[in-house]
Every structure is written in C-alpha cells, then in structure tokens.
C-alpha cells in the first residue's frame, strides 16, 4: 500500500491534501465573529502586536504591500493610510469568507482606492517576481500546509531589499507563563468559542495549531533556509507572540 504524506491539523495527523480544506472549514465557521473573538481572546492586545508590526514594516507612501492571510483587514487598513494614493495594498486570503468579511469591513470604514482584495494561497502567490516592498502575514503562517514552500513563494514576490514580517503565536519564555497560557488555551478558549461563536471545535483547533507551530528559533532558521537574510525576531507579551523579520537579499 502506498504511504500517504501527512501533516498536522492541530494535534491530528491528516493527509497533506486535506489540510487546506479543513483549515478553510474552520475559518468559514469563525469569519463572521472573527474580530469579536480576537478582541475577546487577546483582551484587545492583538491591536498592540499589530501596531508594532506596522512600525517594523517601515512602510512608506508609494510602496506596494502584500498582507497575506489578511483576514478582516486590520493591517491592510493601516497600510492603506500609510502608502497613500500612490501606493497599493493587496489584501490576500485563501479563505473566501474571511476575504469577503475583510473587504466589506474595509469598505464600511471608507478604506478604498488603493486596496485590492485577492483570494490567494500563500504557497503559490499569484504575483510576478519582485513585486512588493513589504509582505506581512499575521496569525496565518501556522495554518499553511507547507510553510517552507510559502516562505519561498513570499521571497520570490518580494523586491530585493523588501522585508517579510511574520506575526504569529509562539513559545512563551517562562515556564510559569506557559502553564497559565496552556490552561487558558485549552480550557477557557474553547469555552469562549462555544459561548460567543457557538463553535468550540474551531477554537480548540486554534489552540492546538498554536502549539504545533515552530518556536521562535526554528521559524527564524526556516526563514534563513528559504533565503531571507538578517532574520531576527521580537518576543511580545512574554513570547506568547513573536514578530519575525527577514530581508530579501
């Protein structure tokens, strides 16, 4: 019998070709209440993580920015203001529901003109080589089936000197914080998911996928292996979240 290649979906092992579909189901399910849950789960701190991400992006007027897994458009809205009319922000997400919610929300907030929503898979970005000055992927990389492939794809579409910023859950620096965080993730998070979005399973997957994501040093090495240089990371909130940055040589 031929062995099927597998990957992780939370704590489960699933065939590689199934993961994208199962992740899609999760995000179809949570899209409508994604923002509310983000605020609830992080106590609003995700706004501060994103604020720091924007600062480290060094975005300027006239630049082209790609916001992968842009979800409901938090980063896109801020980038849109920075790059101005002469720049462009591409809001990309593999998930149709998330992209639709993001696009509608941006329009409701009056963010338009320099924003283009694109449904795209991070592993196979549908853009020419050397297109973007900066790429961000916030809380999205852990859901990608082949992260190495996605990082190489991002490197390809970045301009030389352009930077990639990966904002993602990571490994807490202190053991005590890790224990508290575990209790929170596996007990409180699914409960809140059930209460607010009537979907405990999706939020259990979110907690599991965070644990399966590479830690700070591993992700930094993966970025270097993909071809990025000057790779570095900043731990935030005790390492619960880390912001990795790499430059295309």
């Amino acid at each position: 019998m031929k062995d099927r290649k597998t990957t992780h979906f939370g704590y489960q092992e699933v065939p590689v070709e199934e993961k994208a579909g199962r992740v899609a189901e999760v995000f179809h399910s949570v899209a409508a209440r994604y923002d509310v849950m983000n605020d609830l789960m992080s106590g609003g701190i995700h706004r501060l993580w994103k604020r720091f991400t924007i600062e480290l992006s060094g975005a300027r007027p006239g630049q082209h920015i790609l916001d992968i897994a842009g979800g409901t458009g938090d980063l896109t809205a801020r980038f849109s203001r920075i790059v101005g009319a002469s720049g462009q922000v591409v809001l990309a997400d593999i998930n149709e529901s998330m992209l639709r919610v993001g696009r509608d929300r941006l329009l409701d907030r009056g963010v338009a003109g320099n924003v283009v929503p694109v449904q795209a898979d991070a592993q196979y970005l549908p853009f020419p080589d050397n297109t973007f000055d900066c790429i961000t992927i916030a809380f999205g990389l852990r859901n990608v089936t082949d992260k190495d492939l996605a990082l190489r794809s991002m490197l390809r579409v970045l301009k030389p000197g352009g930077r990639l910023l990966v904002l993602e859950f990571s490994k807490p620096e202190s053991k005590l914080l890790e224990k508290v965080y575990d209790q929170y993730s596996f007990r409180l998070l699914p409960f809140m998911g059930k209460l607010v979005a009537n979907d405990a399973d999706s939020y259990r997957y979110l907690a599991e996928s965070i644990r399966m994501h590479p830690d700070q040093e591993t992700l930094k090495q993966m970025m270097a292996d993909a071809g990025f240089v000057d790779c570095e990371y900043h731990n935030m909130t005790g390492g619960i979240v880390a912001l990795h940055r790499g430059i295309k040589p």
Partner: protein
Amino acid sequence: MSDPTYRAGFDAALETAINTALQYDPTTRARLQGLDGKVMALNLTAPKLQCCLCIEGDQVRVRQHWEGDVTTSVSGSAIAFMRLLKDPDATPAALGVSISGSSALLAELQWIMSDLDIDWEAPLAQLVGDIPAHSIGSVLRSASSWLSASLSRAPVAAAETISEEWQLTPPQAQFEAFADDLAELSLATERLEARVRLLQEQFSRREAE
C-alpha cells in the same frame, strides 16, 4: 530590550490622548496640517524614553520605531521639553535641551502650543448636556485660574514667611549684600594667592642664581 507590547500600549494611549484632545481644538488641528510629514525624534533623559512624534495630516502619531527621515531631534528631560513647548520665549540652552536638525519645527510647535485652546466643555456636554457642562467648566476654569495664581505666588510667599515671620533665614537684601561681600573676598583672596605665587617664583629664581 523591554517587551514591545507595553511600549506599544503606552504609545497608543499617549497618541489617543493627544488626538482626542486635538479633536476639540480645530485651530490647532488646522495648523498641524501645515506640518504634515514632519517628524520629531525625542530622546528623553528623565524618564529615559525614546520616541518619534510623526505629524500625519492633523493628527500626531507616537512611534517607538521609525526608519524614515527625522526633521528635528530633541534631547533633554520630559519636563524641560514640555516647558520648551509651552513657553515660546524659552530657549533650549537655558533648559538644558539639545537640538539637532531643523529648529523650525520646534519653533512652529512652540507657536502652536502657546495658542492651544482645547474646548473641554464639548466632550463634557456630550455626556451631561450643555448647561451642566458650562457650569462645571466655569467652576473648573475658576479653580484652575486660582490654582495657577496661587502657585505663581507660592515661592515668594514662602520665602517671606521663612525670613520675615519665622526669621529662620536673613532677609533677601541682607543675604545679597553678604553674597556680594563674599564674592569680593573670594576674588581678593585669589588675587593675593596669585601675588604670593609670583613672589615665590621670583625668590626661587634668585636662589638658583
């Protein structure tokens, strides 16, 4: 490096406070628009803090990390910087503040801040209504004016009480005369010391011959 989350929270709170206050002063907002794109880097020594104030349209953004051009860099204590902004006649050197880059931005901000007139009654009126807001505003304005006058008189009044009433220190005129005498004595001593040194050198030379 400290956790960027806390700094981001501090910056966000400061930025919100500044821009919320600016909402109630349209004149200042209009003037700020003339400075769109200008950036002031602050290197505060007490408390130790570095940040950039970026003017975007009629709003101020507070950033801990900035890679673009900086119009003006200011280094000094937070209190000195605030005094510099609030008093158009204050000079950086007198307050121990050092400046690099264009000083025009600082002058513009001094001018804008000296005319800052935030209408605090407007947000209050949204909460409690126009008439109560005006009454509360009048009371607060009177209290502020009394406090400000009292604080400006306080050092003189305290000095008078200590020297005249309690007689713990000599009166100011007597102290100034004493200080002048002391300065004169100090100069005379220095002159005498110089003469003695000269004489010693002359004696040493003669003995050597």
